[in-house]
């Protein structure tokens, strides 16, 4: 049975807005550190523009490296947010209430970070705009508007816009709450403008409830399409190991696996950093872990399908790529680590209730999942490119450079900093939603047991 959140409204308001209105010392230290790492990334980016892609460890014929791996990884992480939020809203799962906002915000910042990688990957960022909007009427030459270079930005722009709108609409009541609670006149004016005069009339609450369901229903197909299109960046090519028909669902479910794990990691950090122990309980983590067991197992099934289809066709290039992935160093080691950290250790442990309700173990296992899932993307992208094809007369192995590691660190810092700044300015938990859960929760007697009864309306 799930534990109800049992704090009065005054306490709920105070605790949920505490981080917004206070300035803990660790906030400055953390943002300073993150700012330093982001600055390092900017310096590398500037050097990249001056010296070009030679800063990266590319070696012919491998010209897709860390930037593409990270692009896929962060797009994947971004999927969890909306998936968790939208599906739980549609299913009207009561335990969704403290989870949704953090998941949605994680989506926004990981998606924004993912969008930077194709620009970095191009090596000539100023040309990217022309590739994405190839409507040059003067020169008589133009890129192909039918290519995945147009599909990708179209999908990501749609997803990002929809997510931002989704979050903003759900934020309106909390912006109004912040407007009512803030003492600073500038803050009051800013929150006042952002909340658009929301007062909480019955009509506004009714429309809020319907909007949550309607936007969830609209965003879910977008979320599926985005990672499908990302998978087609690979699948429409003829590189061995990339053009498998299961790529779209395989990428989508992999995204959900890494993303939901990231949501759990973030929630556990939030619980301690923002003092939200009353709102993020063992039940929430337990429920997400159960969901993860299913998602991880479906993901493993698709991984096995990808492997099986690769061998089943007995196409020499495909078989050769799989042999390289699984049998040749260093790929053997990477494959073993990714299977162990992405599935065997976490799912093996999540089967035990005691682990699912242990914050430390859940933190460790969900971080392990994302290490494994990053290695999975690395294993998808590189080995197929490294294989010597008929017309490749000069080739070498890809070895990531220090600059690429620096870019990765900076992008991770960017996501964390974005999340932290958002949490500082706006409530990271939907206060109205949580308080609604308390109002609707009552207990009924069934036989000798007292169980929570929750009224739902659509």
């Amino acid at each position, binding site marked *: 049975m799930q534990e109800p959140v049992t704090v009065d409204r005054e306490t709920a308001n105070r605790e949920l807005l505490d981080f917004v209105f206070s300035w803990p010392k660790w906030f400055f230290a953390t943002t300073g550190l993150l700012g330093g790492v982001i600055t390092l990334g900017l310096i590398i980016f500037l050097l990249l523009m001056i010296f070009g892609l030679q800063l990266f460890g590319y070696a012919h014929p491998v010209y897709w490296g860390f930037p593409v791996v990270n692009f896929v990884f962060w797009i994947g992480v971004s999927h969890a947010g909306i998936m968790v939020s939208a599906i739980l809203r549609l299913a009207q799962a009561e335990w969704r209430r403290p989870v949704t906002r953090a998941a949605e915000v994680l989506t926004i910042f990981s998606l924004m970070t993912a969008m930077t990688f194709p620009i970095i990957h191009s090596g000539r960022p100023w040309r990217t705009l022309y590739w994405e909007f190839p409507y040059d009427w003067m020169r008589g030459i133009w890129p192909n508007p039918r290519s995945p270079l147009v599909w990708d930005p179209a999908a990501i722009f749609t997803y990002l*816009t929809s997510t931002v709108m989704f979050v903003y609409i759900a934020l309106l009541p909390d912006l109004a709450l912040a407007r009512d609670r803030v003492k600073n006149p500038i803050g009051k004016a800013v929150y006042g403008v952002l909340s658009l005069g929301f007062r909480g009339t019955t009509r506004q609450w009714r429309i809020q409830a319907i909007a949550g369901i309607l936007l969830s229903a*609209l965003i879910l197909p977008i979320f599926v399409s985005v990672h499908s299109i990302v998978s087609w960046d690979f699948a429409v090519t003829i590189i061995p190991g990339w053009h498998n028909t299961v790529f779209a669902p395989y990428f989508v479910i992999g995204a959900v696996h890494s993303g939901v794990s990231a949501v759990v990691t973030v929630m556990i950090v939030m619980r301690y950093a923002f003092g939200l122990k009353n709102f993020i309980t063992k039940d929430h983590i337990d429920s997400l872990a159960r969901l993860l067991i299913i998602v991880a197992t479906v993901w493993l099934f698709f991984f096995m399908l990808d492997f099986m289809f690769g061998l089943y066709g007995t196409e020499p290039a495909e078989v050769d790529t799989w042999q390289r992935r699984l049998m040749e160093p260093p790929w053997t080691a990477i494959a073993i680590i990714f299977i162990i950290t992405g599935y065997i250790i976490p799912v093996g442990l999540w089967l035990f209730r005691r682990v699912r309700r242990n914050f430390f173990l859940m933190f460790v296992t969900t971080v392990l999942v994302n290490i494994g899932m990053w290695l999975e993307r690395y294993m998808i992208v590189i080995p197929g490119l490294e294989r010597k094809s008929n017309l490749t007369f000069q080739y070498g192995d890809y070895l990531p450079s220090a600059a690429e590691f620096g870019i990765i660190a900076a992008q991770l810092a960017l996501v964390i900093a974005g999340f932290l700044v958002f949490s500082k300015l706006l409530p990271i938990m939907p206060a109205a939603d949580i308080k609604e859960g308390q109002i609707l929760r009552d207990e009924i007697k069934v036989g000798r047991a007292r169980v929570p009864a929750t009224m739902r309306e659509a």
Partner: protein
Amino acid sequence: MSARNSDRKRELLGLYNEPDDAADAVSRLRGAGFGGNDIEIISATPYPEGAFGEQHAKHRLFAFPFAGAACGLAVAIAWHIGAQIALPIVTGGKPIVAVPAIIQVLYEGTMLGAVLFTVLGVLFESRLPDGIGVYDDRIADGLIGVSVIARERRIPDAQIALEEAGAVDVLSKDGSLMRPAAASP
């Protein structure tokens, strides 16, 4: 009081500790002859629809995504097919407009239109953006407001109805506390 002043409308807000008291205030206001459109319940938390005996809120929110999807699809078609016709790549006899290669973009355009129109619909149906009207910050702490818009000459009736239901305070449009109706001359 001149006829023009007595016809002018003003908003009163009663604040209540309990949902039952707020529901009672709504009943009393109805009993005093105030229509459903003049009465509004304001809370910091959504309550189940009908909890205060208020009228069902009619809306057309479900129409917005369909209209948006149609507009989004039209724009995506015009933009993408137009670009291909305007910049015809050599296709070796194949059609200039390659529908299978752009179907993803048409799909994204359709969905983007649906989402944007839904958001506009949410704002329109929520009557936002709007001036804050009569409001009290204590609503954020859990008090429930019952707001009524009344003509000047009916203000005392509205105030009495709000007070008799056990209002903690009754506020007028400018946010000032109303003197208890019994104490008024």
